[in-house]
């Protein structure tokens, strides 16, 4: 349904021109607006709006500047982003703007007054993407193939509307490519020394500082953060430790232990294009557990650690660091009224077996801990407190940096990508959805700030 945004005077001015016969004048402005729109399209006086995005080919963590020009003045428009995930799902975002007196909009400086986000959000169309109406439940956007970009179509629509509404007039469009990998970055599959991983090397001779990149219990092998690190000049090895067909044992159990991570760290040290004295470790979610194990085990000397929303210990590990099945102990699971599960209480420090907690005070390198305060999967704040206190007692407060983000959830990932508040955890014996937490706008702000701080931390401790 159209909302009329033209002044009555303007409408009457148009009516006074020749096409009067095409318009029957009623009290209803919406009907009038529609008729006048048709008039405009028939005449030889054509508006040709132009929508631009700069750069049209960008890395995921680069800002894209979107502008619309040659539109009518003080005119309502909707900017809409659409893309297909690798699984074929349609993701969309949209926002409502009004053109200025020159008939332009500029998403870097203008304010959205409605839609997927409000306010001045230059990258809102990307972080506010959601599965389109009618999609399957519990989707999460993760790129498997980092050698191709996401193709995001940005379009400019007439009036304040939404993608799901029927009649929309598209005024202009532009296609953007969003890449996890810069040109020249090399992707190398690693299946040696029993390691299952992918190594990314920046272009050039090196040697490069490096990161060991560890993800969570969902498992598999996620490459996109490592691809971005390599695009920023750091070699990066992402390793799978559960849920991967090339790993030994059943996929739902972590069958590898400390020696596995030691091999991965060693691989980086031994690589001719990696600076063996400048290797850091980053862990997200359960990945924090091996991260801390590496840092507190003799023989390893990472240069820095980054821990995102993870715990100091785990009730699922035996003495050798191998895990038992996660589902075997559900006493701390909490369910909301939709039957979605929050694992948060599993990792409350008091619920963790004391023998599984790492001696964090033995850490000799800088540690950055990132907390999403709305994390519903891990008790991040409480675990951060434990780590901070342990280091403080050991006189090592100067090694500790905490970043804490209100409204952010568990999955703090590279910026300008959507927040999943919940997603499908497993399908057998029946479907179970898990809660990650986080609300789109604060989560997006957290991802943007955290990424910048992560890269600065890596520059400081791996490069200087």
């Amino acid at each position, binding site marked *: 349904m159209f909302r009329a945004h033209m002044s009555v005077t303007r409408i009457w001015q148009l009516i006074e*021109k020749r*096409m009067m016969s095409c318009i029957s004048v009623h009290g209803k402005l919406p009907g009038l607006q529609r008729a006048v729109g048709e008039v405009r399209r028939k005449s030889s006086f054509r508006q040709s709006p132009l929508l631009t995005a*700069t750069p049209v080919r960008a890395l995921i963590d680069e800002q894209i500047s979107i502008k619309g020009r040659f539109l009518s003045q003080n005119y309502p428009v909707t900017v809409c982003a659409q893309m297909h995930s690798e699984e074929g799902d349609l993701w969309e975002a949209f926002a409502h703007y009004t053109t200025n007196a020159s008939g332009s909009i500029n998403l870097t400086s203008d304010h959205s007054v409605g839609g997927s986000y409000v306010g001045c959000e230059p990258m809102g169309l990307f972080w506010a993407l959601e599965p389109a109406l009618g999609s399957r439940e519990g989707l999460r956007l993760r790129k498997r193939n980092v050698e191709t970009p996401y193709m995001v179509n940005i379009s400019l629509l007439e009036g304040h509307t939404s993608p799901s509404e029927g009649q929309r007039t598209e005024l202009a469009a*532009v296609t953007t490519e969003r890449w996890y990998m810069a*040109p020249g970055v090399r992707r190398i599959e690693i299946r040696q020394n029993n390691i299952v991983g992918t190594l990314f090397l920046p*272009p*050039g001779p090196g040697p490069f500082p490096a990161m060991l990149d560890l993800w969570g219990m969902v498992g598999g092998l996620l490459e996109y953060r490592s691809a971005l690190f390599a695009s920023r000049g750091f070699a990066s090895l992402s390793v799978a430790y559960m849920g991967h067909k090339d790993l030994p044992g059943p996929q739902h159990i972590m069958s590898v232990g400390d020696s596995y991570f030691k091999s991965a760290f060693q691989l980086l040290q031994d690589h001719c294009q990696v*600076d063996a004295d400048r290797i850091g470790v980053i862990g997200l979610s359960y990945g924090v557990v091996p991260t801390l194990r590496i840092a507190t085990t003799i023989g390893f000397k990472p240069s820095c650690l980054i821990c995102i929303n993870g715990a100091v210990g785990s009730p699922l590990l035996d003495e050798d660091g191998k895990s038992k099945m996660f589902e075997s102990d559900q006493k701390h699971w909490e369910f909301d009224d939709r039957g979605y599960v929050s694992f948060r209480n599993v990792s409350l420090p008091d619920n963790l077996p004391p023998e599984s907690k790492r001696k964090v005070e033995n850490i000799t390198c800088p540690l950055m801990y990132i907390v999403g305060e709305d994390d519903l999967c891990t008790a991040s704040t409480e675990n951060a407190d434990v780590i901070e206190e342990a280091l403080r007692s050991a006189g090592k407060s100067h090694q500790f940096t905490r970043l804490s983000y209100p409204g952010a959830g568990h999955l703090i990932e590279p910026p300008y990508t959507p927040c999943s508040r919940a997603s499908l955890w497993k399908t057998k014996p029946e479907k179970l959805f898990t809660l990650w937490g986080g609300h789109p706008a604060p989560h997006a702000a957290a991802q943007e700030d955290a990424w910048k701080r992560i890269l600065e931390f890596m520059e400081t401790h791996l490069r200087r």
Partner: protein
Amino acid sequence: MTQAVPPILSVTPSRALVDEKFQVLVENLPPGCPVTLRSLHRSEDEDDWEAYGHYVSDHRGVVSVSEDLSFGGMYTGKEPMGLLWSMRPVPGSRKGLRLRKINVCTPMLVNISVHSGHEGFRDRTPLASALAERWYMAPGVKRIDINKQGVQGTLFIPPGPGPFPALLDMWGGGAGLLEYRSALLASRGYVSFSLDYLRSEHLSADVEFKYFETAFNIIRNHPQVIPDRVGILGSSLGSMVAFNLTAYSTIIKPRCIVCISSNHYHPPGTTLKAGFKILSNRTNDLSKINCPMLLVNGCDDQNWPTVETVARLLREGGKEHLLSRLAYPGAGHLIEPPFSPHFRATKFIILNSKEKVILLWGGHTKPHSDAQEDSWRKILSFLQLHLYHSPSVKANL
């Protein structure tokens, strides 16, 4: 103790359109360190092209090509894009080469590297390197081969519903069909048709206005083109065609035209091809032009005498108000989209005789490159004004 950390070289953006600037930054050098920044590109013809500049890092160990001065190499001074426009074939290459992208669907890959020292930098392995992609075509632009009503060429359509303003794009001789300017114009929002009109079959036949008028109407009638927002852009011989079409056609009325390196004076015994009737037996009368016209010329154009004649025609024509002129001292004949290398003379095959010569285009690299950068911006601005902006309302509403 640990070894020194190598410097970091970054090129931002790493993927860009060819008319966009990039920032080349080197960090983590020792302070006051002499280094050479070098670019290297392998062309589609498998020739290697390079450029380099000599720099010294500041107290923070940083070299910024956008901010700092080059003290030698292929360019000097503050030249953010010097690593591209000053490129030459590497020593030992064939003579008379010209760098032109034929396949516009793939990017030009440029390797940028930083080497220690100034003299003899090539003997040392680079300290760091990065790869930049330079594209003629934005994502979503469609490329369509046209063979319709006897007219041949390649059409480029921007993404989106349209309809769009459009351009008929014509090059000059000696090059075959060049698509890259049209691809770039489509990436800037114009439907653009690069017209093929210099094949031998065209020359032997009666190539009258008809061929070009048909081409213009194919564009005009395209469902994604705004019929009264079609302009013509021509360079060299193509600009002559543009000029004559605009002045003498009774069928087509371009909204504006851009003529790059045109010649409005016909010496007797013209070198233009027999049978090419469009360019013979006409008086070059500027008064016949009825739309805004932009003339772009290099004052050091060695190919045709151009600048001297325009001034006269301006006065005689009485159409000064339609005319805008850009004349660039030190620039040659081949004024192309910016940041591409300059060619003072290149190989050329004379169309009728098939004779291979080295043709002198003129221009000196630095002023020619400045002319390319400045003229492209002004051409786009001129096109936007006449093809995108709403004119003062005389519409029939």
